[in-house]
């Protein structure tokens, strides 16, 4: 009688020793067994083999070690089997042998021997396979010890594997039918599972964890039966549905064991064909909701859905089956039911299930957006009871859930049709939502998705709320990481480009919608979000204008005056004017930011666009705004310099203005120039202003006198600067300015400004030369080079020999 050790298995070291001892004994008995085999001594062979198998009666080995011992004896039993086979050739009947081995007094060796003889018996076909198998599987009940029983039955399964009365097997027919084979395997499976489940109750509670680990190591012994079932040719769909699956599931559900349920459900899903799963979804899913609450159902169901979706992808004709069995509705019902039944399931589990279902839906029914929405809806329902999700794992899963449609469709527009999508996002906390928003934008960018309807834009901004505006729970802007914030806002800015439609009306609506949302964003965001919006609007303006031109071509008969009205008739709602109004408001809101320089630039951009559209009042208004901004808000001197140059540059190109307006503006601009703080800046601004009076374009103003005035003024300022420099620093300042002015002179001289005479130029050159030679002028090689190349240019012009050269002739260098 073996001693069972109630306090678990001995330590590892002892285990090694015990195993070594047991193996040695097996070896010892096997030696005598071999001798008996060689001598054809059946009785001795049985006696020693029983002794050898007696070693398997130990309770002291851990399952792993026991396995090693089992393998050793397994090999020996193979030899015994060969012997039995030969014994029957020598005239011993199988029936006799079958009885003879049953005299062994101990049940475990007896059953191992019985199985071994049984194997030979079946092969001989002297008895119907089904009878022998049935007897074996019944007799094996004698072993109720979990580990020993599992291994014994595993042995039975091993030796019977190739002897089942499967369809088309050699043992079928008189030996039995596939029903018998299935019955046999099912019974063995059931018994093994019972033993396996029972294992957890052996030994003290404190070692439960260790025991569960050991138990887990044995799971494949049980699972192998399912594999055998799946390999049976004769098990067709009907039999699977009517016999195999219900029986297996019954066992799974009734065993009420977490480890077993999870493993076996997984096994079922993995070993049987997808087609069967599809046809038995009801049953399979029904079982899912009956599992223990602690079972990881979500993984099980995910696996199932995963497999099904792969199956669906395998062949197009399969899809018809999916709709035929209403796979989707069954799965979604099952998901809901499981969540309902398993009250304790953490939120993350529920979300995971939805993720799995969604993945399935996206793979199988990508065309059914309503299904997708339905899944999201179910998830919303679950989330509604929860409020904001704080669990980080669940959050992660929700992100997966939300990302899945994006990834699948690669098109945000499709996703925007999902009414439940934003509802789910509402349940995310601020940070996560932001991440999600970033993901959405990135998806748009990556796929180049254009969002072409205003209502879609509206919906999109609902999703992007957290990026576009402050909302409840968001940290104040000061708390945000500056860099992150910038990055996010840049993303939003890039997004604006994707909001576009060929149709002008719609486009305008889109712009209005976008603006509406951007304006909720607060001053800090506007700086990022409005410029792209402005440019987007400007693009619209240009398109409108383009169309006007086309119309013009079409309707040559109309006078230019009528053309305007016809355009308005065509574009009932939209006109450049309207867009400009929109622009004006938009840029205006930048003043609140405040971002005066940006506003100024945008005003100027708009003015230029208005100019291209021949809309003088609008252009004038924009300029006015630009000037106002300049006056009131740009105080930094450097910024002023830049602004002046921008203003002048823009103004120079404006051709829409009438004389009066133009005068006002140029006057203003020159005025600003002269009021700059630093002399060199003043000087430069002033000479730049000269361009305002000299437009090369056709019909442009060419007021040579005022040009000269400007230049002279610039000279004066340069002089003053020079003097100031010598007073304050003790050395001469910028000859540069003079050289620059000289270049301006040359420019106008070349372009035929009559007021610029060679004398003036000559004088300036001399002045520069003098200045450069003056002692208190600082030598600057770059200036020298600048001046030298200017002179070289003059010389070059003189030699060219055309009209210009003639004029240059008078200048001496």
């Amino acid at each position, binding site marked *: *009688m073996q001693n*069972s050790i*109630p306090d678990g298995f001995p330590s590892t070291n002892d285990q090694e020793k015990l195993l070594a001892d047991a193996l040695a004994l097996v070896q010892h008995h096997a030696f005598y067994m071999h001798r008996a085999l060689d001598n054809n001594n059946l009785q001795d062979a049985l006696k020693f083999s029983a002794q050898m198998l007696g070693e398997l*009666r130990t309770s002291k080995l851990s399952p792993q070690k026991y396995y090693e011992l089992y393998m050793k004896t397994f090999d020996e039993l193979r030899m015994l089997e060969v012997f039995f086979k030969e014994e029957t050739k020598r005239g011993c009947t199988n029936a006799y042998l079958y*009885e003879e081995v*049953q*005299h062994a*007094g*101990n*049940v*475990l060796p*007896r059953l191992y021997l019985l199985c071994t003889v049984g194997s030979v018996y079946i092969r001989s076909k002297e008895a119907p396979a089904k009878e022998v198998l049935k007897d074996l599987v*019944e*007799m094996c*009940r*004698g*072993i*109720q*010890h*979990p580990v*020993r*029983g599992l291994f014994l039955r595993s042995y039975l399964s091993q030796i019977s594997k190739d002897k089942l009365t499967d369809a088309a097997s050699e043992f079928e027919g008189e030996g039995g039918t596939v029903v018998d084979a299935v019955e046999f395997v099912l019974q063995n499976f059931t018994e093994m599972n*019972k033993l396996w489940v*029972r294992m957890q109750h052996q030994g003290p509670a404190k070692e439960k964890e260790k025991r569960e680990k050991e138990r887990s190591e044995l799971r494949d012994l049980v699972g192998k039966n399912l594999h055998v079932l799946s390999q049976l040719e004769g098990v067709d769909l009907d039999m699977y549905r009517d016999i195999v699956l219900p029986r297996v599931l019954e066992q799974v559900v009734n065993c009420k064991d977490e480890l077993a349920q999870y493993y076996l459900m997984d096994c079922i899903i993995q070993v049987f064909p997808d087609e069967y799963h599809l046809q038995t979804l009801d049953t399979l899913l029904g079982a899912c909701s009956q599992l223990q609450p602690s079972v990881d159902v979500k993984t099980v169901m995910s696996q199932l859905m995963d497999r099904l979706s792969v199956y669906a992808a395998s062949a197009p004709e399969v899809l018809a089956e999916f709709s035929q069995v209403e796979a989707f509705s069954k799965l979604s019902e099952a998901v809901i039911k499981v969540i309902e039944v398993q009250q304790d399931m953490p939120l993350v589990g529920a979300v995971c299930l939805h993720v799995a279902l969604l993945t399935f839906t996206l793979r199988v029914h990508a065309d059914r957006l309503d299904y997708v929405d339905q899944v999201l809806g179910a998830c919303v329902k679950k989330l509604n009871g929860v409020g904001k999700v704080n669990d980080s794992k669940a959050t992660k899963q929700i992100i997966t859930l939300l990302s899945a449609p994006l990834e699948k469709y690669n098109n945000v527009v499709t996703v925007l049709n999902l009414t439940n999508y934003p509802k789910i996002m509402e349940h995310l906390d601020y940070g996560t939502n932001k991440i999600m928003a970033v993901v959405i934008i990135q998806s748009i960018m990556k796929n180049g998705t254009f969002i072409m309807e205003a209502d879609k834009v509206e919906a999109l901004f609902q999703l992007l709320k957290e990026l576009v505006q402050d909302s409840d729970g968001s940290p104040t802007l000061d708390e945000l990481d500056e860099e992150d914030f910038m990055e996010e806002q840049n993303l939003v800015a890039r997004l604006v480009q994707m909001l576009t439609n060929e149709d002008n009306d719609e486009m305008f609506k889109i712009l209005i919608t976008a603006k509406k949302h951007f304006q909720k964003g607060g001053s800090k965001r506007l700086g990022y979000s409005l410029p792209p919006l402005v440019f987007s609007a400007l693009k619209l303006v240009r398109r409108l204008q383009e169309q006007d031109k086309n119309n013009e071509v079409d309707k040559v008969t109309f006078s230019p005056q009528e053309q305007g009205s016809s355009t308005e008739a065509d574009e009932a709602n939209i006109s450049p004017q309207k867009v400009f109004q929109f622009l004006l408001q938009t840029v205006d809101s930048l003043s609140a930011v405040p971002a005066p320089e940006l506003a100024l630039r945008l005003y100027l951009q708009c003015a230029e666009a208005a100019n291209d559209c021949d809309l003088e009042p609008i252009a004038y208004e924009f300029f006015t705004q630009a000037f106002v901004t300049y006056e009131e808000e740009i105080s930094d001197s450097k910024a002023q310099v830049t602004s002046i140059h921008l203003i002048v540059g823009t103004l120079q190109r404006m051709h829409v203005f009438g004389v009066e307006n133009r005068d006002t503006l140029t006057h203003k601009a020159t005025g600003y120039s002269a009021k700059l703080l630093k002399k060199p800046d003043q000087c430069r601004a002033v000479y730049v202003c000269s361009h305002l009076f000299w437009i090369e374009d056709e019909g442009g103003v060419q007021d040579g006198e005022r040009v000269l005035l400007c230049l002279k003024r610039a000279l004066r300022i340069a002089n003053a600067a020079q003097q100031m420099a010598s007073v304050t620093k003790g050395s001469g300042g910028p000859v540069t300015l003079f050289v620059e002015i000289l270049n301006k002179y040359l420019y106008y001289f070349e372009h035929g400004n009559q007021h610029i005479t060679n004398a003036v130029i000559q004088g300036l050159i001399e002045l520069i030369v003098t200045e450069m030679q003056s002692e208190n002028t600082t030598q600057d090689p770059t200036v020298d080079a600048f001046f030298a190349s200017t002179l070289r240019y003059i010389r070059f012009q003189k030699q060219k020999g055309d009209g210009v050269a003639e004029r240059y002739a008078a200048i001496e260098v």
Partner: protein
Amino acid sequence: MNYIVGVFKQPCVISVKFADGDTRKQATVKKETGQSVELPVFSSKDTISGEVHIVPAYGKKIDHLGVKIELFGQIGLSLDRGYDFTSLVRELDIPGEIYQHKVYPFEFSAVEMPYESYNGARVKLRYVLRVTVGRNFPSNIIHDSEFWVRNTSPPPEKINPIKMEVGIEDCLHIEFEYSKDKYHLTDVVIGKIYFLLVRIKIKHMELEIRRRESTGSGANTIVETETLAKFELMDGAPVRGESIPIRLFLKNYDLTPTYRNINNKFSVKYFFNLVLVDEEDRRYFKQQEVTMYRLDP
């Protein structure tokens, strides 16, 4: 085969040769010494015939007062000398002399041998052929030659299964079933044990075959019990609802039919004892009498 008892310095060698000795069935019987011997097997109403061979020692002659052969059945208890219940005598020779190998045929026809030979713990029932060469001096030359008797019986008229529910309250409750209450000696015991309630940690379960030999009567009855077989039925602890099969081939065990009150001297009864052993090696058992009988071969 002859059974020869060679006694040193005996003036002659006596042996008994059965008529069908070469073909007759043999029984292997264990003697007290531990050796096994093979004996010819007879049944009641058999005719026991053969020859007695007397071979004098070389060069010796035996004067005798006559030669006879006796057949007797004897019940021996370990304490007393034994009790003969059957005794038949045949005179083989009148007084005279034997010079050389002499053969005497004998025959006991249709001998009534109601009891089977039996070799128990305390009781022995044996059948002996005794050849006596009568002498005055020195004493008689006696040669015993044992044979074995087995009587078959017709199959019992009624065989019932044994079904029983036993248990210890709130602890263990089982139902067991043996296919029959009467078995022949090469029968198979089929049955099962069904566990209705298990609250103890059972280590294993076995079926014992026990033989109870009782001698004497009344207050002087002495009972001797022997366990002839221990057959493990189950290894490990079952749970509620398990049923464990029993299949036990009886032919390998040294069983006899059940004997009831043989010649008012003794009885032999057989029992199945179902034993459950728990982890603390406590034994829980239930004993059931079964009747054994010998079937016509």
